[in-house]
């Protein structure tokens, strides 16, 4: 007899609780959007420009003394943060100053060592000028836009196997984005507009699975970004990479559940869709928990052991994968049912 985390005859009522799930998701989305749009995301050095200096002292140093040393080097408006283990005496200094002049880092280490009274090693120095910051921001936004577009087009074809409709959708979507782009609409506005166009198209063409998948996708990425923003984490290039990975991986799970729903729809054509969906979610539950669980094991070990530089990246993945698993059970599948019920009423 094999070991089972989930009993094979399990039958939990996921679909019946969808109102609750919608409420929870709605609140999370609202909080995320509030944090992202009202307060605004905190841009890291990559996007905002400025400097990051990671220093390691030989002995104990008070943060005030580090500030004194920085002031002597004409570095103002800094945040100094202790990182890693306290015994490492390691600090991360963030500042808007963009100093790249000759002799800067030797002067800095001299002043820091003098102020702290102990030897110092500059382990990392990242200086990004405003121009490069703007370029990188543009690239990051384009990356998000393109991955959303490509994914939307892929799922529109993949989930329904109506490739001619999907080609049409791709054409309309591509045309809309191109039009917005030529009218010089900034990319941060194009992204939500393109998503709205996608959702409307899926709704009009009756692509209920694609609709569920794209809603779950937006749900996952928005909440992941929102949680990072609420936790006051910085958005850097690697965090954007994590968000794109979430786009890819969140669908992974949704696809597995959907495949099962379609298989069961073919097998049990008389059964109501609600029952089929619930049954499909239950049938795939044990593999969902195994696959997501083991991936989370890797992400958690990366988060805990991978070091300071990769920390926020791992955190973004952690949040995204947890939300992604939740959404493929509680958001993506119930939306298919909700759409079906609406369609019948009309």
């Amino acid at each position: 007899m094999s070991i089972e985390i989930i009993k094979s005859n399990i039958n939990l009522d996921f679909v019946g609780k969808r109102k609750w799930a919608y409420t929870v998701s709605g609140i999370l989305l609202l909080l995320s959007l509030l944090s992202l749009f009202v307060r605004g995301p905190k841009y890291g050095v990559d996007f905002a420009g400025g400097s990051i200096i990671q220093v390691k002292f030989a002995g104990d140093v008070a943060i005030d003394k580090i500030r004194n040393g920085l002031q002597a080097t004409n570095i103002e408006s800094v945040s100094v943060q202790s990182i890693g283990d306290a015994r490492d005496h390691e600090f991360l200094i963030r500042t808007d100053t963009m100093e790249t002049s000759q002799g800067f880092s030797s002067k800095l280490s001299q002043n820091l060592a003098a102020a702290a009274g102990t030897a110092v090693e500059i382990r990392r120095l990242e200086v990004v000028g405003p121009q490069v910051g703007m370029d990188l921001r543009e690239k990051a936004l384009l990356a998000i836009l393109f991955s959303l577009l490509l994914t939307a087009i892929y799922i529109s074809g993949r989930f329904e196997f109506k490739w001619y409709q999907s080609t049409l959708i791709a054409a309309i979507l591509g045309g809309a984005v191109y039009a917005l782009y030529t009218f010089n609409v900034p990319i941060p506005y194009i992204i939500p507009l393109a998503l709205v166009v996608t959702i409307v198209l899926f709704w009009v063409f009756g692509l209920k699975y694609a609709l569920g998948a794209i809603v779950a996708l937006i749900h996952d990425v928005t909440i992941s970004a929102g949680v990072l923003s609420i936790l006051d984490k910085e958005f850097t290039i690697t965090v954007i990479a994590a968000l794109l990975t979430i786009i890819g991986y969140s669908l992974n799970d949704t696809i597995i559940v959907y495949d099962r729903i379609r298989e069961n729809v073919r097998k049990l054509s008389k059964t109501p869709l609600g029952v089929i969906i619930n049954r499909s979610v239950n049938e795939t539950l044990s593999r969902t928990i195994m696959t997501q669980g083991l991936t989370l094991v890797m992400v958690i070990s990366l988060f805990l052991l991978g070091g300071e530089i990769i920390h926020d990246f791992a955190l973004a993945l952690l949040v995204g994968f947890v939300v992604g698993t939740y959404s493929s059970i509680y958001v993506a599948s119930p939306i298919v049912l909700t759409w079906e019920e609406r369609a019948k009423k009309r």
Partner: protein
Amino acid sequence: MKRFSVRLVIVLAVIAAAILYCIPTFRPEIWPHQKINLGLDLQGGMHLVLAVDTAKAVESAIERSYQDLRELVRKNQIQGVSPERPSPARILVRVQGRENIEKFKGMLEKELRELKISAQTPDLDTYVATMELPGGEADQIKKLAVDQALETIRNRVDQFGVSEPDIRRQGDDRILIQLPGIQDTQRAKDLIGRTALLEFKLVDESRDVNAALQGSVPPGSEVLYKVDEDPATKRTSRTPFLLKKTTLLTGASLTDARVQIDSQYGEPYVSIEFDRKGARAFERITGENVGKRLAIVLDNKVYSAPTIQEKIAGGKARITGRFTMEEARDLAIALRAGALPAPVTVLEERTVGPSLGSDSIRQGLIAMMVGGGLVMFFMIVYYKLSGILAVFELILDLVIIGAGLAAFGATLTLPGMAGTILSIGMAVDNNILIYERIREELRLGKTLRGAVDAGFDRATLTILDANVTTLIAAAVLYQFGTGPVRGFAVTLSLGVVASIFTAVVVSRLVFDYILNTQKVKTISI
């Protein structure tokens, strides 16, 4: 049975190739000699993006034409001409008197063909012409300036001694420089970024410097400073010099620059040697100006201003200035490699110390081993013998990722390590999908053979689908990402492809082999 053996050959070939490409990373002398490159964030080093101030290159081209124009007017003895530079990009000439205008225009017919007359008044008693560089010419100068800067920086880096530097053009006017494993980043940056424009100018002795500082600097002269640093107190002092603006000779006519030690004071200095043309010019300049002071100016800083004792033939000079040995060496390199055609500014700098890089590798490996160990443990406990197969495939995945990195000459970065760690978690997903499906089919009462066939067939399509979206994300990341993030996209894609191969092809092969050759009634899954 035939299909079976073909698949076996393919699988063995892939495994052999993967192992072969992983060996050189540990023993580089073994064929195929391609080892995994570590990114700057893992081995330490410096990443610089410089912008070449191309507008300055155009300006100095105009400045040269402007000086030529004044020289020509003087040589042809045309009266009543007053040239000005109202803006850096323009020359404005005012000529009085009909005869002078004729002469001036005649001169323009023959000389200064590079300038375009963008506006002129009709031929009255006063002729005013605005001259500038034609658009195409300016673009050409800009392009040339970046090419030249690239070449110069390459020379400097080569002479500085960095192994495997990567220096390339980025966009129109940017230069990307990657110097792996460099220790003294400050020195390298100073050497790369300095313009190293060496100029010889006469000291203007018609007026006292302090008077010039107080009031007006005479036209055609400028004040530049000599900066000295006291080696003990680190305090700097600035001495002003009043110099004639005209540059008599530049570092462009150097053939050699090397460090020598002064026998009297034991201080290093840089001795320079001119080419034949430069040597003749130097001889003429010193001959014409005996008794005057000749200033040696580097990047608008005066280094010394010795009095010319006699005509100097042979084309040799020395630059002194209380250098340390390193400073003198770097200056000699910069002079030998030549001046940058225009100043450069640092747009982006990322420096990682070697100790941080090795810390990152260590932490990444620990995360990989702890997480990977837990995943393997779960797989074996949960799926028993089939779990052991999945663990073997996981190890094979890692070998394929490493081999892919080496074979494609890709760079392993810190996010790349994270991608590898992540793909361990994703790789077992595929095994789980297949195993769960087989378990399910067995529960439905299928035969062993039927359950395994159905499990693989049904799960394969789902696996392909579920991974396509991750590959889309990785492709977009590769397209738009910077170096470290690209590394992530590469390892993630390699991991996804490897795990599809091992979970679908290799597992199937093993299951088929067991079912075909052993008389098994149950499988351990």
